[in-house]
């Protein structure tokens, strides 16, 4: 029980900022030249009065630039770019768990802990990582290589249990052994193959591929050009009819006179 309590307290990421030497208002941050171009292309996607819609994209960009985390100075910079208050950016950055507001290790291991993965053994995977790297959830290993976090479903439930690394690559169909294997490879500086770790191809079932064997046919598309033409024709016809009717009425009216 006590263990559970301690785990619980430790597992919480802080919702407030802690002033540190490496992360405060004065730490220098600016987007790189290349990223500024990216910023411009992101901003171009939104109407100028709704600039703030670009906030998540910019935060993600900043996170990429800073090796996996968003420093406070980056948030302030983004608030300047988007012309919103600093607090608005803090709110968004702290709401989404995919933004790290503290530095992470070289490999940020995000283990899915949602029901399907959990049923298939996500807890063992977490335990393996904890034991191998000597860290608990939300901690970074001493050598600076690994950070472990538990996240919600990443949409690869067919290949449960799975982990995502640095928000990009996924490693699926894990067992404690394969997980350990992966960790060893990273420690040795090697890059393991992404995808299922049990020899399975994509998300094929145990009997291999059983359906959809032929070449996929081209999807059936509506011929929009024709639809448009039809529509235009119909309109024109209607207009003609209406005109004819009008003319007739005018004639009648004259006859009456």
């Amino acid at each position, binding site marked *: 029980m006590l263990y559970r309590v301690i785990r619980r307290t430790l597992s919480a990421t802080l919702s407030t900022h802690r002033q540190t030497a490496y992360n405060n208002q004065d730490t220098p941050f600016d987007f790189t030249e290349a990223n500024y171009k990216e910023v411009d292309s992101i901003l171009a996607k939104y109407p100028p009065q709704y600039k703030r819609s670009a906030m998540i994209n910019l935060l993600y960009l900043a996170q990429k630039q800073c090796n996996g985390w968003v420093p406070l100075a980056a948030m302030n910079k983004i608030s300047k770019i988007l012309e919103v208050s600093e607090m608005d950016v803090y709110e968004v950055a*702290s709401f989404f768990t995919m933004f790290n507001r503290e530095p992470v290790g070289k490999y940020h291991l995000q283990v899915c802990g949602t029901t399907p993965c959990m049923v298939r053994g996500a807890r063992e995977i977490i335990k393996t990582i904890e034991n191998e790297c000597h860290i608990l959830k939300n901690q970074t290993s001493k050598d600076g290589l690994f950070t472990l976090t538990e996240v919600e479903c990443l949409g690869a439930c067919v290949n449960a249990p799975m982990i995502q690394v640095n928000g990009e690559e996924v490693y699926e169909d894990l067992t404690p052994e394969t997980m350990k294997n992966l960790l060893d490879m990273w420690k040795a500086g090697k890059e393991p193959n992404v995808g299922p770790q049990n020899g399975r191809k994509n998300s094929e079932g145990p009997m291999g591929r059983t359906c959809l064997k032929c070449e996929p046919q081209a999807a059936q598309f509506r011929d929009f050009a024709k639809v448009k033409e039809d529509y235009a024709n119909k309109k024109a016809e209607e207009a003609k009819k209406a005109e004819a009717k009008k003319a007739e009425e005018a004639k009648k009216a004259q006859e009456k006179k």
Partner: protein
Amino acid sequence: MPNSSLNNNPINMLHQLKRYFRASSRLLNTIEVFIDGNSIQVPPTFTIMQACHKAGVNVPHFCFHDRMAISGNCRMCLVEVERIMKPIASCAYPVSPGMRVKTQSEMVYNARGGVMEFLLANHPLDCPICDQGGECDLQDQSVVYGYKQGRFLEYKRAVEDKDYGPLVTTIMTRCIHCTRCIKFSEEIAGMPVLGTTGRGRETEVGTYIGRLMTSELSGNLVDLCPVGALTNGPYAFTARPWELRIINSFDVLDPMTPAIVVNTRGPEVMRVLPRIHDEINEEWIHDRSRHAFDGLKQQRINACLVKTQDGFKEIDWEQAINMAAEKLNQVSGDEVVGVIGEHMDLEAIVAFRDFMYRLGCENIEARRHGIQVSADFRANYLMNSKITGVDESDLVLVVGTNLRTQHPVLNARIRRCVTQNDLKVAVIGPSESLGYDYKHIGNSAKTLKEILDGTHPFAKKLEKAKLPMLILDSSLLKREDGEAIMALVQELGNKYKLVNPEANWNGISILNSSVGNIGALELGITSKHIPGFKPKIVYLLGADNFRPEEIPEDAFVIYQGTHGDEGAYRANLILPGAAYTEKSGTYVNIDGRVVMGRLATSPPGQGRSDWEILRALSEVMGHTLPYDDLQEIRYRIAELAPHLVKYDYVEPYNQTEWITKAKKGDVVESVFADQVDNFYMIDAISRASPVMAKCSAAFNHLKNSNFVPEFPNR
């Protein structure tokens, strides 16, 4: 508690109606809705909650607040609407014709009970040690909707307390995330420093980076918070609401005279809260109004004192009065100067005026260094557009004042209009952050001249504006070229539509800095400033903000007042007076509104109401003033100026015509400086207040330093 006296006054009602028609005619179309079966007519813009309130049905709520945007996140206001399956958050749902709302059905009770259960899941049950206990919305509503037992068996969460400064204590574990404080800081105070960070169970309300809440209006957060998460720092653990006596009064530390409630327990003032008064302060007061009252318990003069070789010696009233009389008898009237202090009530000013005139002294000074324009007509020294004029105006030009530190409550009103009515603001003078976007167009009277010539780009805007306003700080009129500035402003008023008799509009609003000042002007007291004149006796009536060099070395100084401040320091004889919470007094605010401050406690020690002291002194001197009680002195005021006994009312005056024209002259083009360098310490009371001292240490250091302060890292 809405101010009902306001609506009872027929003349006030007329005024309100006028504005009502000007504001909108669309309010007049109404639709019919049914609240608990009773039909009621409401405007189509109403929400269900507003309709319920109009029907007299109370809907419990946490996040909804009249004066702020709807956020709809507490869900306490759920009601049932016929033909809609789910309960509806009434604060955020507009009415539609024929809508049938049920507020007492079983579904509603269950829904609200569920919301309450969730709120209480993480709310600590520490009511016995919580300052909000007894006036807590959550407590009250859980009596009605709370289940007798919670089903939440997990651990409650705990949240780190935040540091908002010495005025607002935070116990954030109690926060129910209604976001009222966030909306306040963003919408009213104009400082978007608060927000919700984190998600789910880890959600916190705070500043994220641990900064202070440096708004002059920060005290209002405490009133807004429906639970005990934000509580009144200085008042912490001192009293319970049911022990307090409620005295409805007006504050005089702010020349706007916001409506306040003074809470006392026994002989002691425990706290000051704002009262709703739509035509003055809406619902807010600034931190000095709210917290400086503890200066009334410090540095007080509670006995008559006379200066001797070895310091001040205590004497009794008889000796003191006799000594004053003797001194005053020794000189002729024109060798005496009277100075009226900034918090003086009309009663004291009238008594002082009569007394001095009887002595043959006409040299009474009420304004620190004297406004240089004629005070014969109210339009010359009052806010001609009225405080509510801000709501109607479409362009405001602020001249020579930093509204945020000098008139924070007025500034909040302007901010509201900037966001709601699309009001545009331009500033000539100090360019501090005001909490909204404004245009800084100049620093000195030169810009005014350019606008008058039409050479300044702002002139075009002023031309186009329908009801423009020019807010002028009275400190500019105290400069040597005060009259010339006034002349310039009057010319501006005539050239542009600042003064517009057709619309019954005069947008030239002069912001006076103290009620004592306005009161004296209302009673026709203007100083004769004779350069080089050396009085033999100076009578300071609660006057502390004077320049010491104005009083000659050898003059005998009588100080009648409340605090051991500048005045008492220089005095030879000290008579203990009463402060604004200790006497019944009437005051005139910057609008020309007469407000009545009520006696909440009695003055400490031998202190007496100021007019009583003057009455006694006059009797000893043989010039007995002809009034013995408050009623009689108010008759005397009515005799001098009948409009000064119509309470909570602004006597209409011909404001659209300058009866006296200020003399034109050369305007010095020096920069309009900020008049307030320390918002927290302006007068004798706030200088004596320990809370204000703490604030000034905590906040001004932020203001005055160029480097980023160390954030507390707890």
